[in-house]
């Protein structure tokens, strides 16, 4: 395999002082899967964006099939046979699969669409690559895995020779991931080349022929997937040796802190349907599931941002209050899924974000007036204790990196203002921690930090609800694990009673009927 289909030479890109890509030289051969591995912010997305024409490189050149690729032009990239499947799909829900595939590939000037021809071509492509999808099905009715197949078909229909997949398994069950890998193998067997972007070590080794590791904008290593190990890849990725997170089961489980009884929410994009769950002091209950099956609704109910339509939620034996500030006052620590869009107000300074949840408490305001000095002192303490880097109290929260944003969110949730004075007792440990995807998109160091904080809070007596798409995280951290599907929550069972297979089946909905009663 010495057919070079794509070569990047000396690609560099800076954003201000940040070097996103530093003289990266990389080749892609015909019929291979190249994994692009790196932590968030390592420069994977920038590199792919340059390749696809969304950014223009400051220096360097790209050659596709022996011809130079015009910089900064997505159309040229498409014409050269490069296709991309984004992590967030770009499909029109209200159109059929066929419409979605045809969309954008027909001339505006032709009088009518050529559906029959398109249907034949789609069937051919689907058959050739072993991707079966009903061409007339409405995209809205498809599962996430099927939608991803449509995205891939869309690219293949346009005759791509090089396919870029951005974190394709993030939204899939283990079983769906396996079937995706089979499709990818089929595609490379037909001579296509694939760039597979990921930060999951196991699947990178499982699926790729060759691995390229990026760290802080530099290409630090390239290796044959058969001749390397997860530990080696992790070391390249982070720059030093890392030990994989260890299971540290709960030592003592206390009384019930939060009880959900047959909770349902009004029908919306996501809903809860008769969910019952008890969270005890000193345990982590982890919720697995494919995103979109009601986990967001569950988190929002417990965070005070969604009302329930039926059932009841009790916190420390009392009905759960509605207002977020009351929840926080009662000791609920909330870590939302989306730190950019929900956790923080990016335009406001760090100190205001640090106190925003408790601004209405007498600690930080008196008769409408904000106690700025107390607020800033608290913000400084959060910054110091949770090691928030990249700015002081007055910096806009937006300019923090993702990991530091999460530390800020975590810090303000876990650190009671009174613990500034009294640092010894555990009296100010949160009663309940609702952590929705707390490590999503963080680098390995930050992931370990966040997980350690959650475990420490649990050991100090907090009840922790951890909702995560990451199965490894669920199985490592959870003392008990339950699976959500279609708004139903299965029974929470000890983590050791689950296998990856049984969780995968439950995520796909195989067991929820059994547990619904």
């Amino acid at each position, binding site marked *: 395999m010495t057919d070079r289909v794509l070569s990047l030479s000396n690609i560099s890109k800076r954003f*201000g002082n940040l070097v996103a890509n530093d003289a990266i030289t990389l080749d892609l051969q015909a019929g291979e899967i190249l994994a692009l591995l790196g932590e968030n912010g390592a420069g994977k997305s920038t590199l792919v964006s340059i390749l696809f024409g969304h950014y223009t490189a400051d220096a360097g050149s790209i050659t596709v099939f022996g011809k130079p690729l015009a910089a900064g032009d997505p159309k040229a990239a498409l014409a050269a046979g490069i296709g991309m499947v984004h992590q967030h799909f770009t499909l029109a829900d209200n159109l059929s699969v066929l419409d979605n595939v045809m969309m954008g590939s027909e001339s505006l000037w032709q009088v009518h669409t050529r559906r029959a021809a398109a249907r034949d071509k789609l069937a051919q492509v689907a058959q050739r690559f072993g991707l079966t999808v009903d061409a007339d099905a409405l995209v809205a009715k498809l599962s996430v895995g099927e939608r991803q197949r449509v995205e891939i078909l869309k690219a293949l229909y346009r005759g791509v020779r090089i396919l870029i997949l951005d974190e394709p398994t993030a939204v899939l069950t283990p079983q769906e991931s396996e079937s995706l890998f089979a499709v990818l193998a089929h595609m490379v067997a037909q001579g296509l080349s694939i760039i597979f972007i990921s930060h999951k070590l196991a699947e990178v080794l499982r699926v790729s022929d060759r691995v390229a590791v990026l760290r802080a904008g530099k290409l630090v290593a390239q290796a044959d997937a058969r001749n390397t190990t997860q530990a080696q890849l992790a070391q390249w990725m982070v720059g030093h040796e890392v030990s994989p997170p260890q299971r540290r089961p709960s030592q003592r489980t206390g009384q019930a802190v939060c009880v959900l009884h047959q909770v349902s929410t009004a029908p919306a994009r996501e809903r809860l349907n008769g969910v019952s769950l008890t969270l005890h002091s000193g345990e982590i209950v982890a919720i697995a599931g494919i995103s979109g099956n009601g986990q967001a609704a569950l988190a929002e109910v417990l965070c005070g941002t969604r009302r329930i339509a039926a059932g009841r939620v009790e916190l420390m034996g009392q009905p759960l209050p509605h207002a977020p500030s009351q929840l926080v006052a009662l000791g609920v620590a909330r870590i939302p899924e989306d730190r950019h869009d929900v956790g923080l107000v990016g335009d406001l300074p760090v100190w205001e974000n640090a106190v925003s949840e408790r601004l209405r408490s007498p600690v930080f305001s008196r008769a409408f007036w904000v106690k700025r000095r107390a607020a800033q002192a608290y913000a400084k303490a959060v910054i110091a204790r949770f090691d928030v880097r990249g700015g002081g109290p007055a910096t806009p929260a937006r300019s923090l990196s993702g990991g530091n944003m999460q530390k800020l969110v975590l810090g303000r949730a876990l650190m009671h203002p009174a613990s500034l004075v009294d640092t010894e007792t555990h009296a100010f440990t949160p009663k309940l921690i609702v952590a929705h995807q707390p490590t999503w998109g963080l680098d390995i160091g930050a992931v370990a930090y966040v997980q350690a904080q959650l475990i420490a809070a649990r050991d100090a007596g907090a009840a922790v609800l951890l909702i995560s798409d990451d199965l490894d995280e669920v199985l490592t951290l959870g003392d008990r694990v339950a699976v959500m599907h279609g708004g139903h929550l299965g029974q929470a069972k000890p983590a050791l009673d689950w296998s990856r297979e049984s969780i995968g089946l439950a995520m796909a909905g195989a067991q929820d009927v059994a547990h619904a009663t």
Partner: protein
Amino acid sequence: MRLEKRQHSSPWALVLAPIGAVAFTLLVSALLVRWAGAPVGQTYALLLQGAYGSVFALSETLTRAIPLMLTGLAATVAFKARLFNIGAEGQLYVGALAAVAVGGMHDGTGLPLPPMLLFVLMMLSAALAGALLLLGPALMKARLGVDEVVTTLLLNFIVLLLVSLMLDGPMKDPTAMGWPQSVALMGELELTKLIPQTRVHTGLLLALSLAVALWALMKFTVLGFDIRALGANPRAAAFSGVPVTRTMVAVALLSGALAGLAGAIEVAGRTSYLTLDMSPGYGYSGIVIAMLAALHPLAVVVASVFVAGMLVGADSMSRAVGVPTFIADVIVAASLISVLVATLLTQYRVRWK
């Protein structure tokens, strides 16, 4: 050509942007002045002199700036919360209408109350009228998702027709020889002049203190935080416990009240009665001023003195060199566009392919 987000705004860009904005505005206007056949330097000198060059010129500029300050503040507080209140013009008119209704000489007699009390009542009712006019659109936005730009804008025309109805009907001044103008305010309710023999009145002090009060409110209070958080990121604001609907209502009441006060102060300070042409679009200019001031309450004071100065200066300049007064509108518009572009360029860089 394309825009790329800057990771860090360089200090150079922050310094050069406003200078570039001024230079661009002067350049565009200079071209038009040349086109009108007038000498550029002299025209600018006359413009500045007519706006700020003498006590009289300055007093006229400040008189014009008072309603602009208030409508500018009205737009500022609303836009900060992303409530796009385009209806300040209508709120100004209902404020003026309420002021005349409370403080006017009806059938030769006014309300039998002491003037001090009546003055306070007049201002409060004007503020309340403006506030209530914006309450409907704000509630419809918060509860039903109705676009407030459409509702507030259309309300302006409804209010103008209502004013017209009142001026030709119940509130018509019988001594006005058939002109559609309202009864006059009781003499005791008129604002005193700041400088004798000029028109600038104590409404200026009121407007300035409201600007400072709004600045303090935004910076130091919980409500100020709520407004800024709601405008910057509604989902995060709701998550952190900002009462979204209540804050939206508070913003609407504040914004409408400020615009309503603009109408009342204009009546009490300058015209003493209401006509249909009392405001040459102060409500809309308030939006321009708020944007020029980058939604900062204290900068609104500066921006409104600038805009008022251009309008007043253009009047006297045009008498001297024959450049149409529309040049003032061009200067204000060009400055707004160049300020917006300059702000954009501090955050994005332009890439040429």
